[in-house]
């Protein structure tokens, strides 16, 4: 048999039929939905007078447009409240499982799915959200879709998709202290640019990837879209199985070991061909930070912003516009630059491991007085775990309070906005103009780099202040 990539194995087993010279009809195992990108899809079904085809394969959460304080009270903003209520009503009407506000399983869709066992190796997974790529960490084909496509999946459990090309990105060697999976992915994106993987589905491999926890792997896969990739995935291994064994609904299944046997086949065959292969050395990666207005504009924290001479002529207009927006000048160093906000959270870095890293870093230190910090767990489960593990106590002692779970300041649809002109070191995934609020200036970084900025009030190399 011809050697196959992991991606092709999963894709091929989900093709219902191929349209000649057209896209494939791909069957979807799991469909996540949320309040922002689903209402028009449900409205479309109603207009056509057709039902939801397989409600049991759908899971809904409210996350994008909800507050992170006083979640027990009605949502103040009328439009937001209406959107959440519309989702609730649609779920009730069509019999879809729904984790709404105050539900003990509520949280960010890409945090909740994996931690509760809705995401499994070998699945095809879609959601009307570009960070659906997160679920690829389990060895699944997971990608973001638009609302018309949400409607397709609601109506038929299938989607029409052209088969993307395959790319393998290997990260070899070992990460240095103070360098995290967030730095790996920011580094890769800075190397290949924000459109560098457009048209590809990426498999991440290599010893540095294998050494990561599931949380770390999710951070990497999550940001695949920031280099334009359709998605990213990592072959399941012992780390994956160990994680899933701890998820009660999965680990307690009588046929868990039969599942394991199937999952074990989910790897790229030796000799399988990729359209593009890249290799990076983990040992060379330093803590990363972005200085511009797309995630590809990143540098090692102790480097300087590129000089104008280093930028090609056709890119210089966009480069200048970006730096003007950020209030930076070409060639400048970022270390020591004052910061106003710190955001820890989002589907990129709102998991328990991120809270642990942040709490451990600030333990025995104090929040800088100029910093407004938003510490937002990715889910109710993460929130509870942070309380149980004593992280909330540590944070409190250092001057930080824990908010309630939501997407929050990652896209600032709720009140958690960064004011115009203010600088935020953010563990989220996008530094686009206005992403965290109109005029807000976002610098993407790891939870450790965010913690370092939170205690010093400035851009700080986290390696200089690591505990133990």
């Amino acid at each position, binding site marked *: 048999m011809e050697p196959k990539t992991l991606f092709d194995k999963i894709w091929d087993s989900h093709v*219902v*039929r191929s349209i000649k*010279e*057209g*896209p494939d*009809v791909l*069957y979807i195992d799991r469909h996540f939905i949320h309040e*922002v990108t689903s*209402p*028009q899809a449900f*409205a*479309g079904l109603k207009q*056509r007078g057709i039902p939801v*085809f397989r409600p049991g394969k759908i899971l809904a959460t409210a996350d994008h*447009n909800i507050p992170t304080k006083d979640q027990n009270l009605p949502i103040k*903003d009328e439009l*937001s409240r*209406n*959107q959440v209520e519309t989702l609730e009503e649609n779920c009730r009407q069509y019999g879809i499982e729904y984790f709404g506000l105050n539900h003990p399983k509520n949280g960010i869709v890409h945090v909740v799915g994996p931690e509760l066992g809705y995401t499994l190796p070998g699945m095809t997974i879609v959601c*009307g*959200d*570009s960070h659906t790529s997160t679920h690829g960490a389990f060895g699944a084909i997971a990608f*973001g*879709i*638009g*609302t*018309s*496509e949400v*409607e*397709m999946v609601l*109506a*038929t*459990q*299938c*989607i*029409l998709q052209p088969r*993307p090309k395959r790319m393998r990105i290997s990260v070899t060697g070992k990460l240095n202290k103070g360098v995290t999976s967030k730095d790996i992915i920011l580094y890769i994106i800075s190397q290949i640019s*924000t*459109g560098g993987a*457009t*048209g590809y589905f990426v498999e991440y491999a290599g010893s540095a990837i294998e050494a990561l926890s599931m949380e770390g792997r999710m951070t990497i896969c999550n940001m695949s*879209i*920031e280099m*334009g990739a*359709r998605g990213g995935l990592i072959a399941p291994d012992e780390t994956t199985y160990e994680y899933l064994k701890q998820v009660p609904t999965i680990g307690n299944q009588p046929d868990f070991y039969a599942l394991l046997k199937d999952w074990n086949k989910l790897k790229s065959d030796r000799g399988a061909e990729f359209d593009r292969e890249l290799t990076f050395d983990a040992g060379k990666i330093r803590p990363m930070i972005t200085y511009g207005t*797309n995630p*590809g504009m990143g540098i090692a924290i102790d480097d300087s912003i590129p000089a104008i001479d280093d930028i090609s002529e*056709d890119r210089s*207009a*966009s480069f200048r516009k970006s730096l003007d927006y950020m209030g930076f000048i070409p060639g400048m160093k970022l270390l020591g630059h004052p910061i106003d906000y710190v955001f820890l959270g989002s589907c990129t870095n709102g998991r328990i491991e991120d809270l642990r890293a942040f709490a451990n870093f600030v333990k025995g230190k104090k929040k800088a007085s100029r910093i407004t910090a938003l510490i937002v767990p990715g889910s109710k489960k993460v929130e509870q775990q942070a309380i149980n593990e004593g992280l909330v106590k540590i944070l409190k002692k250092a001057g930080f309070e824990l908010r309630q779970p939501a997407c929050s300041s990652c*896209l*600032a*649809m709720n009140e958690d906005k960064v004011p115009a002109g203010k600088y935020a070191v953010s563990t989220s995934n*996008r530094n*686009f*103009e*206005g*992403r965290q609020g*109109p*005029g807000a200036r976002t610098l993407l970084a790891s939870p450790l780099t965010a913690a370092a900025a939170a205690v010093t009030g400035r851009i700080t190399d986290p390696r200089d202040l690591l505990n133990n």
Partner: protein
Amino acid sequence: MLKEKFDILETTCVPLPLENVDTDQIIPARFLSATTREGFGENLFRDWRYDKSGRKNESFVLNNPKYSGKILVAGKNFGSGSSREHAVWALVDYGFRAVVSSFFADIFRNNSLNNGLLPVMVQENFLKDLLDLIIKEPGNKIRIDLAEQSLYVISSGESVRFEINPYKKECLMKGLDDIDYLLSIKNSITAYEFRNTLKK
């Protein structure tokens, strides 16, 4: 069904010579709370079109009376970032029927095709020349012929061919959408489900 079929489009163009225009710029997140598909055009490129106090930013191309038309010509990697289809709804609601760029983000391209907005991918050099031309001479018209898969610059007589998936081309020309197709093969879908339950 798509709202409109796509056949031949002949119009002036709006130039946006910036790279990596993300969907957050096309329609900022704070306008995504609506539950319908209509009305997004008024907030298209909101934070580039208006300043903080809501005044028109005269230097932005949509506020420049010299430029108008149903084709947006933009720098490479147009539509990157968030999957929000609201970005396409905003462009369509504003009056655009096609976007020309040297490449498009994948989700944006799919969303466009699902809403009858034609993404036309051209070579980087051609794009640069086209942008220069329409910035200098805004009256220039372009003709996009979907059947021929050609983009024709009327003043210069220059013509280039663009690629489009034959299935999607047919959908656009006939005004059909993917759901129409998927509903027509429901039997194959249930058969697939049946086969897969048997395997397990």
